[in-house]
């Protein structure tokens, strides 16, 4: 019955589209012969995680803290063409997070059409929804997804350019840019265009980009500049009343570094977010950033620690829009986290993380334990 009610963007009921998607996934997964074809190859990976949470100050786990989740990656390459998707499933939700059709114009330069993660988030474009490749259990609050009270739009539906060019004999330059329809503002969250559901509200233009230096063309380190421009239209009367504006234009300026030196890894990002609102509401701005340090230890252990901080967020009407005054931690101003990860088996890890967070109205101390894996 629910299937009949959820006719959406492409006029196909949601359940039927999901069934078709799973049929495609099954086809890709069950046909290794496809991978052996002369010019075609396919990819199928599942990142799974299970998490336990305890603490005080935040008695109820948030939606982004499901006790179990699976992130299904599927890709099909034929010559210079590639189709690629990411389907995220939890006990609370399931969504086609990314679906991209691309053409490799020249080696290591792809032009994509579809729904993608905006390239100005160094964290999210590195880890996406899969948790296994992320050393810490939690992600920095400013990198949260839209349905986790994320302040910065992360999903765009449109066109994406991803290019990596050599710079000298060993180094490289990464140039990523995306343009398309961004999210609409509802009460308590922004809502990006979904490919498997309805899309109420007006979706404004999002433009976003990253310019990064790679000390090694095929290495793990990079550092660069981030930029984004998002027009967000308010679609909810309650949100309109809170914001005092029909729309908000975000100007995002940032810098990041993800640098590995021997057994050490440093991930740091700083954002300045400018929020333009309709007169007479005053424009506003805030800053936020984080630094995570990781150290590989003997016996497949990795210790990590992260500090997150912000400035002027508690004065922002735009930021206040994302706090529903519940007992949950919605908008985080500061957090200190530390933990230990143990890669005890091939493609399997156990992680423990202790954190203390300060939000607009709450304080919380948490202990999380997570099992994560990549299959096959």
């Amino acid at each position, binding site marked *: 019955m629910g299937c009949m009610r959820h006719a959406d963007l492409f006029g196909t009921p949601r359940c039927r589209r999901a069934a078709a998607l799973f049929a495609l996934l099954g086809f890709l997964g069950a046909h290794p012969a496809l991978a052996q074809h002369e010019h075609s190859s396919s990819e199928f*990976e599942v990142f799974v995680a299970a998490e336990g949470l305890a603490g005080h100050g935040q008695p109820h786990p948030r939606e982004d803290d499901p006790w179990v989740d699976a992130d299904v990656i599927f890709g099909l390459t034929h010559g210079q063409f590639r189709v690629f998707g990411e389907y995220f499933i939890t006990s609370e939700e399931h969504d086609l997070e990314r679906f991209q059709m691309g053409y490799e114009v020249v080696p290591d330069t*792809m032009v994509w059409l579809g729904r993608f993660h905006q390239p100005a988030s160094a964290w999210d474009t590195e880890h996406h929804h899969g948790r296994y490749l992320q050393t810490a259990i939690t992600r920095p609050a400013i990198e949260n997804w839209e349905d986790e009270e994320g302040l910065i739009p992360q999903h765009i539906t449109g066109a994406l350019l991803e290019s990596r060019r050599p710079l000298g004999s060993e180094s490289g330059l990464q140039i990523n840019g995306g343009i398309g329809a961004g999210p609409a503002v509802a009460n308590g969250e922004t809502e990006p265009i979904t490919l498997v559901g309805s899309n109420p509200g007006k979706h404004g233009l999002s433009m976003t980009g990253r310019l990064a230096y790679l000390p090694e063309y095929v290495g793990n380190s990079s550092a660069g500049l981030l930029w984004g421009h998002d027009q967000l239209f308010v679609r909810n009367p309650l949100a309109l009343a809170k914001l005092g504006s029909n729309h908000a234009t975000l100007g995002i300026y940032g810098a990041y570094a993800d640098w590995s030196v021997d057994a050490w890894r440093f991930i740091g990002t700083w954002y300045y977010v400018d929020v333009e609102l309709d007169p007479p509401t005053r424009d506003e701005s805030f800053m936020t950033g984080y630094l995570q340090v990781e150290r590989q230890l003997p016996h497949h252990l990795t210790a990590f620690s992260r500090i997150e901080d912000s400035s002027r967020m508690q004065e922002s009407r735009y930021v206040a829009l994302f706090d529903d005054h519940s007992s949950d931690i919605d908008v985080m101003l500061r957090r200190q986290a530390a933990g230990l990860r143990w890669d005890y088996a091939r493609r399997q890890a156990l992680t423990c993380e202790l954190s203390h967070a300060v939000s607009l109205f709450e304080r919380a101390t948490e202990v999380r334990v997570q099992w994560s894996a990549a299959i096959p």
Partner: protein
Amino acid sequence: MVSSNSVKHVAATIVLVLLLGAATRAFAAEEVVLIVSARSSIGQLDSPLVRRLFLGLTVTQHGSRLRPVLNEADAQIKELFLQNIVSMSDSTYDRYLLRLSLQQGRTQPTVYKSESELIDAVAAEPATVGYAWMRDVAHNPRVRVLRVVWHD
């Protein structure tokens, strides 16, 4: 007349030479080589390009997209590949390939647990690049050795 001591010396020398020769042959066979199909037009690939290829990035030659295949027929050749071609530990290499899959849906190289199957795959497809023990491909007319990537 030849003394028995002289005979013993000559025999010992012959045995020693034979042993040394055998040892030298075994020693020379300890090489890992980069291979392509005998029908392939792929020319020389320098070390950075080979590394890039096996790290899952796009490498083309003469308009053809090269396809890497991994040889995991034995633990030693896998270890030599990690040390001499991609310069990474096993877990770092695995995570690197997983990252490429997660980020761009890039296909991971096909893994072969049998060297004969790998050689068949390389021989059958002109764009495929693999690696194998020299002793296993030296007299195989279906594959061509591009270069030595490791020798003892």
